[in-house]
């Protein structure tokens, strides 16, 4: 399968990304010419120490952040220099994000959280017209991630694993092409983390979802098709492995 993927153009590629932040008076470089590509249907993990810039790389790829130098291409088209509205659209339609701290909105119920990307995508009128389909879709996805019994709960009433599965459901409802996961198991115990990984792998396998996952855990990273090691803002080596 990986062979076929490599034949085609990569779905997303970050090329020679440099990014630095200002910390007080000092400019702190985080990424120094890092690059990463992912093909359609590929599960890539990025591993590195804290502060190695792996999260920043993910943010740049997901258009949450802009690179100082370097380009991000989606399906061969440069996307990092698009205007704000187009970037918002891409974030909404092409990317799905999962975070270490789940980042569900505390005021909304799980179902509303899951529907949020579609609420953002559609105007009030459109959303109202499609409310039944949207709701059905959200319920179906929640069922897929095993949360159909928690639909009307607030995030504060859910466990960490449930919240992360909710966050995955939210990331999937917009039918994204690429799932960007930032330490999805970082805040969970091994068993729950394993469950999350199984879910991600299943999604990758069944729906051909492209996943780029950032982690500092070797064991977690090893479950991806391919692992990229990031050190001090540069890609060190690419580890090939069999799909788990």
């Amino acid at each position, binding site marked *: 399968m990986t062979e076929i993927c490599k034949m085609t153009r990569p779905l997303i590629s970050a090329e020679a990304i440099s990014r630095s932040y200002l910390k007080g008076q000092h400019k702190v470089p985080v990424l120094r010419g890092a690059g990463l590509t992912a093909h359609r249907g590929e599960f890539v993990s990025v591993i590195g120490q804290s502060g190695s810039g792996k999260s920043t790389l993910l943010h740049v790829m997901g258009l949450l*952040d802009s690179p100082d130098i370097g380009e991000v291409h989606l399906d061969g088209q440069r996307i990092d220099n698009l205007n704000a509205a187009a970037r918002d*659209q891409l*974030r*909404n339609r092409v990317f799905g*994000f999962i975070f270490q701290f789940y980042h569900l909105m505390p*005021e909304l119920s799980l179902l509303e959280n899951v529907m*949020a*990307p579609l609420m*953002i995508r559609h105007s009030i009128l459109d959303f109202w017209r499609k409310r039944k389909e949207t709701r059905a879709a959200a319920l179906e996805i929640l069922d897929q991630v095993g949360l159909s019994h928690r639909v009307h709960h607030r995030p504060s009433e859910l466990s960490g694993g449930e919240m992360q599965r909710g966050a995955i459901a939210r990331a999937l409802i917009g039918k994204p092409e690429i799932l960007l996961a930032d330490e999805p198991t970082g805040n969970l115990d091994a068993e729950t983390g394993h469950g999350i990984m199984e879910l991600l792998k299943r999604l990758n396998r069944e729906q051909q979802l492209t996943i780029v996952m950032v982690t500092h855990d070797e064991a977690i990273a090893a479950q991806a098709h391919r692992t990229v090691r990031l050190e001090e803002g540069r890609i060190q080596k690419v580890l090939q492995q069999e799909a788990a």
Partner: protein
Amino acid sequence: MYKLLLCLRYLRTRYIALACIVSVMLGVATMIVVNSVMAGFSTEMRDRLHNFLADIVIEARSTSGLAKADELLERVDEAAGQYIAASTVSVEIPGMVTFTDPWTGEAYTSPVSLHGIDPRGKAEVGPLKSYLDSYNPVMEDGQIVRPALRDSSEPLGWELTSEGQQHFDSVQEQKAEQLRQWQPPLVEPVPSDSATPDFDDSGQPPVFDSPSAVADASAGSDQGPEPTDADAANTVADTPVVQFDPNNPNAGLGGGMSPDILFEDNPAEDIKPQPNDARIYIGEGLVSFFVKNPETGRQQKIMMVQPGDDVIISTITASTPPEVTKFHATVVDSFRSGMSEYDSNVVLMNREALQKNRGMQLENRVSAIQIRLHDYADAPKAMAALEQAFAPGEVTIRTWEEKQGLLLSAVEVETAILNVLLFLIIAVAGFGILAIFYMIVVEKTRDIGILKSLGASSSGVMAIFLSYGLALGIVGSSAGVILGLLFVHYINEIEDVLSWFTGRKVFDEKIYFFFEIPTYVNPWMVISVALGAIGIAVLASILPARRAASLHPVRALRFE
């Protein structure tokens, strides 16, 4: 969609936002209450001013007035008849009224404005009847303590009521009695020489109006000439009058002669004395004062002059140069328009008598024409037409508003300043919203990051907080409008409670002559206050909303 949802959710779950709502609500309610009460007072005041003045007043420039009142009215009718509902002529001149206070026996003189009117004509241009004491019941604490003396259907006139006539008769009786007592010393020069110094030494005038003395004196006079005087003198034993009597046998002798003289001079017992030709309605404020009743603790109105009393009016004649003229007038009634400016300044008098006393009757001269219009909105057209009818400089034509321009504009300025000050309250509430919103934005920083990662635009995030401000403004304003209107509606009940609570009258009806606090709710005022408050809430949320919109998603996500 998410904007609306989140905005409503924030509204429901952020209790700190309740502080914003309350501050907007209080500001709006205060403005509505104060505006309504101010508008109530000023409407009431305008009504009173207006009612007393009629719509348009044409005034002669000279004190001698305009000749031929009937022709004047015809001219006015010809010029602007289609607008005019009623018109009447009057003679207005400054003067003085002198009356005796029955309690102290001292004479008071007040400067007044004498209005010679035709009461029926005057009643057509303004509600004169409702001002007159005899047409209205006397109320105290909502209870009628004296019914109206005249039926409201009785036409206005200068006749005394039966109570007034009784009072007049008793006053005349009393005067006659005093004359009977005092004539001897006055007509007989020899005893009076000795009597007068005695009287002066005592330094006290006789108490003419002391009711008990009068009663005794009149009772005594019925019995017979000679012993009567002694009796009367004895009964009124406290007065200095009595003391010189026994000392001076001459006085007794003189007193013995009095009946004869009396019968010659004073026809009191043959022909009943009639009230003067000059009759007046006197402003209540001129002749009354308030005393606190020590028993009930209430303010009580004491009238110094009653219908049937005589007063002296002084004024000037219409001749050139003017001469002082004075005459007696009988008080027929007192009036209260509720405007102290009139009630303590104006004496309404029968026009014919005033014209006669001022030498204006030959040409039927009048000094002013009062006009009521069908529709006050026609005033400018009517004024323009009227101006054509008179020679330039002959008269001044003014609406009541122009005549009271200073007072009315003072009230307007007052209201405007108050509104500015009160709007500052809402502005303060606005700054409260700004501060609280900033806090909420900081608190929601991570949510903003999430929304952006999900593809929300900056303007969308901004819209959340702007509509949040709008929602707060709407909720706060509506609550404020409801609270304010309820307050206005129950203002008198609230005043009662406050009075009971503080132990003193918050709103003393005696000051304003209102039984209730007048209020007038102008719907446009309510709408503009509510919209203003909503506008301020939205304005105050712009800054926090901009901050929220400009948050960098990554930094917002990392925010702890």
